């Protein structure tokens, strides 16, 4: 089965983000496909390459990087939300004259069309948070 995930939860508040990554890992382990995860609103903070977690807390970014690198999962941040939350990739940082990119290169910053396209092709949409 093909799944699309929509993540609305902040990576640092509540459990939505952690559950989304765990769901993705479990679904892939059972032979399902996750082509794209779309992050919206506070969920876009998941893509931060600047956030520093305390040493005794799990790294919130690492599970997503593994999903992208090992399973080719596309990680897409909604551009409207991302800009408001200061989540800029190199292209957006240059466009808006900001000193550096804040988004990890494993993530793509793009529009809602990417979500609609992924949902069109998916058997199931699962939303985390909201």
């Amino acid at each position, binding site marked *: 089965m093909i799944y699309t995930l*929509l993540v*609305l939860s902040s990576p640092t508040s509540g459990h939505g983000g952690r559950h989304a990554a765990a769901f993705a890992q479990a679904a892939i382990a059972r032979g399902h496909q996750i082509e794209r995860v779309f992050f*919206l*609103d*506070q969920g876009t903070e998941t893509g931060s390459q600047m956030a520093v977690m305390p040493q005794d807390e799990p790294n919130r970014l690492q599970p997503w990087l593994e999903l992208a690198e090992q399973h080719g999962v596309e990680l897409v941040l909604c551009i*409207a*939300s991302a800009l*408001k939350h200061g989540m800029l990739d190199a292209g957006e940082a240059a466009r808006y004259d900001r000193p550096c990119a804040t988004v990890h290169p494993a993530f793509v910053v793009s*529009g*809602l*069309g990417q*979500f*609609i*396209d992924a*949902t*069109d092709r*998916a058997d*199931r*949409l699962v*939303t985390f*948070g*909201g």
Partner: protein
Amino acid sequence: MRHSPYGGALARAAIDMAMAMGAFEQDFELLFMGTGVLQLLDDQDSHQIGLRNAGRLLSSLPLYDVERVFVDADALQHHGIGLSDLVVPAEPLDAAAIRDLLGSADHLVSY
């Protein structure tokens, strides 16, 4: 659409999503539930809190080819809102009709 218009960012994010679905010619319907029905109020003025007027944004929905707009009848009654107070025409649904509507969709985007 489940969130009050100005209590957080998700109501506005959901309106943006609806407009994007319209722009990408998706076959979709909107249902306003719970405090989300407050988004539909005709007489809103968000100027002093520095936010875009949710009602005005929603009033442009007919331009985005949304098939139909539904509203939770119990939530309207709970908030003392009549159908004539809404910024776009909406069909009221009771709990059983809401279950049927949600059950008939291929995908639900709910926030």
